[in-house]
């Protein structure tokens, strides 16, 4: 589904990302872990063509992302608040995304009804604009909005950060369900090793822009990661 070829990103003298080769097959649930500045968000931003690679390229489902816009219909993401439109209510935002992805109101409502628990009555019908919601609730909106329109690739940067424990557990369930679908490739980055090992089939560790571990998740994975980061 996604393949990365000789990808580098440099700012001045500093190389922040340097990946020779990375293949993510269709349907995989892919976890990205690493310390601050390891290049996780840089990689995701490159995937979404929000920054330009210094060299190399990414191919998403046969579309080279920095050349064509054709990856947009089947890819969706939530990176940070800049993916939210502050002056809309959550409902309006969901419908807006829905319309962009060819889903009418009924479709969006049907999808949203699956997330009643996740929203915990704090999102819909609140008479609040997104900019006035708390950080955690904003995140919930952004994450759910990225599921609208059956995307084949879902990219979530730090989805667990800022969420309360109940919501974190629910989100894990949601991502697992999503990953269980054959056709959906999920990319998640996280600082929380426990969450990411629970959710992802494969975990890649980035350190200073380079891939240092590429693990197929098993019972020992958490230990291995803890040793890596602890040592």
């Amino acid at each position, binding site marked *: 589904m996604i393949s990365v070829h000789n990808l580098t990103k440099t700012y001045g003298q500093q190389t922040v990302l340097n990946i020779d080769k990375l293949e993510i097959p269709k349907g995989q649930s892919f976890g990205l872990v690493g310390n601050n500045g390891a290049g996780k968000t840089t990689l995701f931003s490159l995937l*979404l*063509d*929000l*920054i*330009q690679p210094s060299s190399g390229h990414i191919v998403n489902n046969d579309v080279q992302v920095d050349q064509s*816009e054709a990856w*947009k*219909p089947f*890819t*969706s*993401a939530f*990176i*940070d608040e*800049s*993916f*939210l*439109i*502050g*002056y*809309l*209510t959550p*409902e*309006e935002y969901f419908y*807006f*995304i829905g*319309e*962009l*992805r*060819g889903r009418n109101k009924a479709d969006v409502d049907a999808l949203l009804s699956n997330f009643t628990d996740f929203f915990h009555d704090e999102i819909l019908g*609140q*008479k*609040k*604009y997104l*900019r*006035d919601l708390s950080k955690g609730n904003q995140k919930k909106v952004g994450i759910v909005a990225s599921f609208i*329109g059956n995307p084949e690739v879902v990219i979530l940067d730090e989805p667990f950060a800022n969420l309360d424990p109940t919501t974190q557990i629910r989100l894990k369930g949601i991502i697992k369900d999503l990953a269980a679908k054959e056709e959906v490739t999920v990319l998640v980055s996280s600082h929380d090793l426990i969450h990411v090992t629970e959710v992802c089939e494969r975990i890649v560790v980035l350190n200073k822009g380079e891939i240092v571990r590429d693990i197929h998740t098993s019972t020992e994975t958490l230990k291995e990661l803890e040793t890596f980061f602890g040592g």
Partner: protein
Amino acid sequence: MLKHFIGLQWKSFYRSASFKTEIWFKILMGLGALWFIFTFTMLGVGSFYIIEKSGLGDPLRVVNRFMVYYLAFDLVFRYMLQKMPVTNIKPLLYLPFKKSQVVNYSLGKTIISFFNIAHAFFFIPFSVVLLIEGYDPLQVIGWHLGLMALFYCNNFINIMVNNKDGVFYVFAALFILAGASQYYQWFDITLYTQPVFDFLYDLPWTAIVPWLILAGLYFSAFAYFKKHMYLDGGLAKKQSEAKTENLEWLDRFGNLGTFLKNDIKLIKRNKRSRTAVIMGFFFIFYGLLFFTSAIEVYDGPFWKIFAGIFVTGGFLFSFGQYVPSWDSSYYPLMMSQNIKYREYLSSKWYLVIIATIISTILASFYLYFGWEAYVAVLVGAIYNIGINSYLVLWGGAYVKTPIELTSNKKAFGDKQAFNAKTLLLTLPKLVLPIGIYAIGHFLINPVAGYLFVAIFGLLGFAFKEKVFTMIEGIYKKEKYKTLQAYKQK
């Protein structure tokens, strides 16, 4: 303690994003400031003699007479633009400062604000001229000090009524009503207010009264702030109750409708964009200056075209100018969502076109000044639709200033939005149509001049697809730089 505060203030000034521009731009900014100071000073010096010459009577009395409007206008202006001193208080709250110190510092900071200093550039030279012209020094000083206190009163009144829109609109309406009734000679408010200002001169000791009022206002502002200095009190962000709007009638336009719906909400729900649109609306009346022959210089034939462009292009200049910065806070979303660049651009284009057409219809009252006036407006509209609509979109590709939607700061011109490329692009917006008109006007006759401009506009309209492909290319090229720039708040 004060040392810390001043240090912080200095850093926040020196390190602000707007200060970190290129060196030539700093020079330009400096020159601009000097020019501003110079003109105001000249106005202060010159106005005494201008008033004296025009035979309105004693210049000091004339100034006193209109002072009430000056003060009212100052207050309205402050309300719209002056920023409240509450920003940057939050990080100080839990530090070992006394609350009263923080409040004093925040209020004190407003004293040196531009909105207070600017008056000095006019009133100090004016007072100096008064002294030179042999007015009694003691009386002039009393008058001057009294007025100074009144400006500072405005400063603190503004702080206290901040964000009470109801109070503001009532006040603004009264102010406009007073002005109108004076113009039509129903009721002259200055008859009652002039003596108040005259007192300051005639009996200089009365200048103490405004100072007492000022002291009172300062202490009430102080008390008010101190009482409300909690995160959920005066420091809380204003939240308005949100209404979900449907605007379903726009659905028939497909993806275009989706964007238009969003843009309408953008305009309605954000202070900054509302201000831009209101400003654009007032442009409609700009033509009155030209067509009523109110100002002699504007009687030349080209000015009619100039007026036509402005009357119908208000929205285009005030809102269109800042596309795509209106979407700056969620630009990454727009760039990664299922949106084609061309659709996004054409939705903005349609918005500008619709607004231009609405302005043209609203401007039909210019028919009152003869069909020629309205023809100028129509021709201006055609040129705006055919040419200027592309030019603002094109220029927008280079405007990389993020817009803070909820604040009115910088609503009147942004330093960073003003760069060489956008400046160059204003030439064809205004100068070119005047040039085209002039060719027709001098070679054939005025009608030909209008016709030429209109044909030019229609030609532009005909080449829409081609021009859009070009603009789209520029936006794509600038995309990464723009995303990068919008990240820096």
